[in-house]
């Protein structure tokens, strides 16, 4: 390594991998991963969020985690988005395609996707 640019390149490459340990994310995306959720296809949804958030460069702002049964099993896969100071948004019947739109419109631009939401947005 002979330059600061090379050092910066390694830092860029690695930062996504350690930023998760910061614990200070502004937004929490929670995927319901109980038996009902998994059976309805929550795992691809979860993975789509993890990948999409990283690709969109939102890893330092958004934490993607999972939770148990949310209670409305007929709407699984369910995703909840928590943001400090705002009402929780709950999305129902999610799939990997819908995830892309939620990342783009809601997580990136701050506008919840009313079409998928079962809460008032």
């Amino acid at each position: 390594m002979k330059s600061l640019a090379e050092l910066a390149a390694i830092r860029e490459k690695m930062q996504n991998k350690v930023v998760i340990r910061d614990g200070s994310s502004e937004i929490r995306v929670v995927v319901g991963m109980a038996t009902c959720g998994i059976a309805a296809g929550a795992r691809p949804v979860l993975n789509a969020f993890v990948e999409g958030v990283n690709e969109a460069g939102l890893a330092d702002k958004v934490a993607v985690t999972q939770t148990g049964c949310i209670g409305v099993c007929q709407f699984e896969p369910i995703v909840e988005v928590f943001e400090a100071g705002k009402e929780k948004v709950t999305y129902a019947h999610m799939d990997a395609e819908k995830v892309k739109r939620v990342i783009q419109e809601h997580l990136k631009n701050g506008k919840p996707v009313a079409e998928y939401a079962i809460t008032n947005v």
Partner: protein
Amino acid sequence: MIRSQVLICGGTGCTSSGSTVLVEEFENQIADKGLAEEVKVVKTGCFGLCALGPVVIIYPDGTFYSKVKKEDVEEIVSEHLLKGRVVERLAYTDVGHEVKEEDIKNISLNDTTFYKAQKRVALRNCGVIDPESIDEYIAMDGYAALGKVLTEMTPEQVIQVIKDSGLRGRGGGGFPTGLKWEFTSKNQADQKYVVCNADEGDPGAFMDRSVLEGDPHCIVEAMAICGYATGATEGYVYVRAEYPIAVARLKKAIKDAREYGLLGKNIFDSGFDFNLHIRLGAGAFVCGEETALMTSIEGNRGEPRPRPPYPAVKGLFGKPTTENNVETFANIPQIIFKGADFFNSMGTEKSKGTKVFALGGKIKNTGLVEIPMGTTLRDIIEVIGGGVPNGKKFKAAQTGGPSGGCIPASLMDTEIDYDNLTAIGCMMGSGGLIVMDEDNCMVDIAKFFLNFTVDESCGKCSPCRIGTKRMLEMLDKITEGKATLEDLDELEKLAYYIKENSLCGLGQTAPNPVLATLRFFKDEYIAHIVDKKCPAGVCKALLNFKIEADKCKGCTLCAKKCPVGAIVGTVKNPHTIDTAKCIKCGVCMSNCKFDAIIKG
């Protein structure tokens, strides 16, 4: 794509409580559940809460699991990682108040009382990164400070930043670090050296070990910065051979840094060369003294030499040398990277920044804490440390190991910094903080440390070699109830004589534990001498066990348990102890169900 990371503490504390098998078990279970692509296991350095080890943190939730056993792993993987349900029985949720069940998931580590009052600078990466990965260190802005000094700053500017930061030596002396660097930089020589003192010898201290284990690259980076600032091209880390994990990780760090060109020739194309070597110490306490340490690196028997000349003039191999302690170095990259103001905005007027303490003894949260200078002893012990266990009363805290003193309960609100501690006849020391409760005898504590210094005195000068031995004999006499008040005066006189006449820091500070306990707990010494009693019931020669006849039910349990048959009596009648036979082991007392046996 990794969505979750399992951080497992790989420090010495958690390794000995079984974290190595956890790493393996987590990896197996995660693979079994088909999560290998999504969840990564990372072995880190010390999180600090050693009392609750082995500890595991799961991100992004930041859930903190304590005392995790191999059998628990499957449950954590299938519940938490697969289904997203926190395993409540293992989650650490001490936030100073009751927690509602639904809130457990949202408690992050930084909310707990143990971490809330802490401020991590030297330990910032410990328990956060994989210490064996140079890439993870770089991700945390590692080596950016080195890049900055080599490409943007002159050596004088570097020294000025360190001076402005107010950083003082964390090994115990508290000498301004910037000034020390400046002395070496001003001395011209064909070769200069940087030495890192990692010969952490105080009983109960493990700050330096944890930094080396948890964040070895920060020491490598800091030493290179120091080399640039002072004009040195060679560095030595003198580390105890008893720290195998620290040594292994440091070796790997040096090797990786060399491969990346962050050590070696022409670093960052700046023309600056720097190389680093490790020397293993054999565990002699005196080798923590800077001149003895350098003598040992040179390959000679570790004995101190008179100062002046100071190492900045004539140090390692007779060349100008800068020697700093591990924790001092650990602060350097942050100071350079974030600026002097970042550092001097923390702490008190004359003691800037933070200090790491190793909490030990009679305290609930045994472990490693880093607090801003000026935090009170009460906050450290009662809030962060969780207080004294078993409802016992706090008596004193010992700081600075065998060179230090003690802080009694009456001075618990003292704000910890270099000058406040010196003012009460104590010293900061390297950061060992041993808590004592009402069951500790202060004369016995002084004796323990004197015993240590008698063993560890190198023998080069007579005040230390002979003087400490004579002091220990006097303490023996006191704890056996054979001393007179004149002996106590003699003890004090001798203590001052040794302080003033010893060659090096070891001898000059060896009497401190006696002087400090005499200052605050003279009544205990007098009780031993005049009343022939040990108030805490520790000194065996002054101790007698008695059975209170009205409380004894004659259950015969004590007589059965007594290893020397010193207890006699018949069933359902009060028993008695034959003091001539009694060896004062205390087995009878701990077994008696009726509290009928007392110390007196």
